[in-house]
């Protein structure tokens, strides 16, 4: 068995753009020694059938994420602001009909 413990290649998160004009989506991760190989591995792993027209790779330890424990207090400022949605406002009947 190998006793080397330092040759596990770093982990990269992979994002891809499925089509022109579409936003990027998370695909999964790959291991690679550097960004160039991370891109190549991402292509071979997640885009063998033109699933993406563009790829991003980001070192996994550089991703900062919100935590599930804080999800309530973190997002609740948005809960009581119904006035941010168009349904909050009334429109004269005559205008509604002309839709």
């Amino acid at each position, binding site marked *: *068995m*190998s006793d*080397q*413990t*330092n*040759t*596990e*290649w770093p*982990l990269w998160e992979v994002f891809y753009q499925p089509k022109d004009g579409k936003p990027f989506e998370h695909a*999964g*991760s*790959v*291991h690679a*020694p*550097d960004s160039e*190989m991370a891109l190549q591995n991402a292509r*071979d*792993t*997640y885009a*063998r*059938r033109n699933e993406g027209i563009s790829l991003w790779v980001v070192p996994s330890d550089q991703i900062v*994420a919100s*935590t*599930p424990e804080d999800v309530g207090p973190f997002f609740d400022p948005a809960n009581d602001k119904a006035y941010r949605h168009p349904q909050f406002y009334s429109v004269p009947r005559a205008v509604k009909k002309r839709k």
Partner: protein
Amino acid sequence: MDTQQQLDQFQERIDNGEKIEPKDWMPERYRKQLIRIMSQHAHSEIVGMLPEGNWITRAPSLKRKMVLLAKVQDEAGHGLYLYSATETLGIERRELVEGYIYGNAKYSSIFNYPTLTYADICVIGWLVDGAAIVNQTMLAKSSYGPYARANLRICKEESFHKKQGYEMLAKMMEGTEAQQKMAQDAVNRWWWPTLMMFGPNDSDSPNSAELIKWGVKSKTNDELRQHFVDRMVMEAEAINVELPDPDLTYNEETGHWEFGEIPWDEFWSVVKGDGPMNRERIKARQKAYESGEWVREAAMEYARKKKLRKEKAS
């Protein structure tokens, strides 16, 4: 320690059909069970390259060679999606891989059978990938988000695998007498091991109830197996190949095909390591892993030097 309140809340989320994501709270046993089944699934995809890879250099035509190469490459991809998903549970790739190469982590027993002729490649696509689709379609709805997403990706590719095998087998069944014999022989050898892929009968499957309760699975081994048999009987008929089970009978009442007793002794002996190819498969994986060590090291060193050079230049 997981408290009862945490467990109840978790169960409520599962029952509501919510997906569990990597940073969410989960019972320690849910995490452990997921690591076990997801990594087994990943190892199976990787080991699964060996029986098929065996025939790449001897494919009957350039077209079949390209198809087989693409399929085997997909299997590597499937293994990588699954390792990537398993790593979200806080375990390292190295530990997973060494767990089956040097430890006793399992992979699907089906890959411990040899591929004796090219007809085996047809039958693996038709039966083995056909069975895998049944299983993975269910797993694409699994409660653990990363596992569900990996399976969804796999399912999209797996139907190509099954169709190319079925098409080739149909071609062989339309061929010369020798070709038909070769095709039938392969079906005879692979039918029962394929049925074993769904795992032991429900009465002998201690993990099933828990996995279903937690929404990792939604159907039992026997339900999946029945679904598969019903479909395969129809597909076998369509290409005039026989399924090697004299007990296959249609039950008008249930609408299902009843089948004979699965040779479970064989199943357990292969699981325990005594299948025809167990030792060879592990040896091949060890060799690949160990011979690749210097490449992994060299690539790391190259990346380090490149970075240093770049830093110096700026």
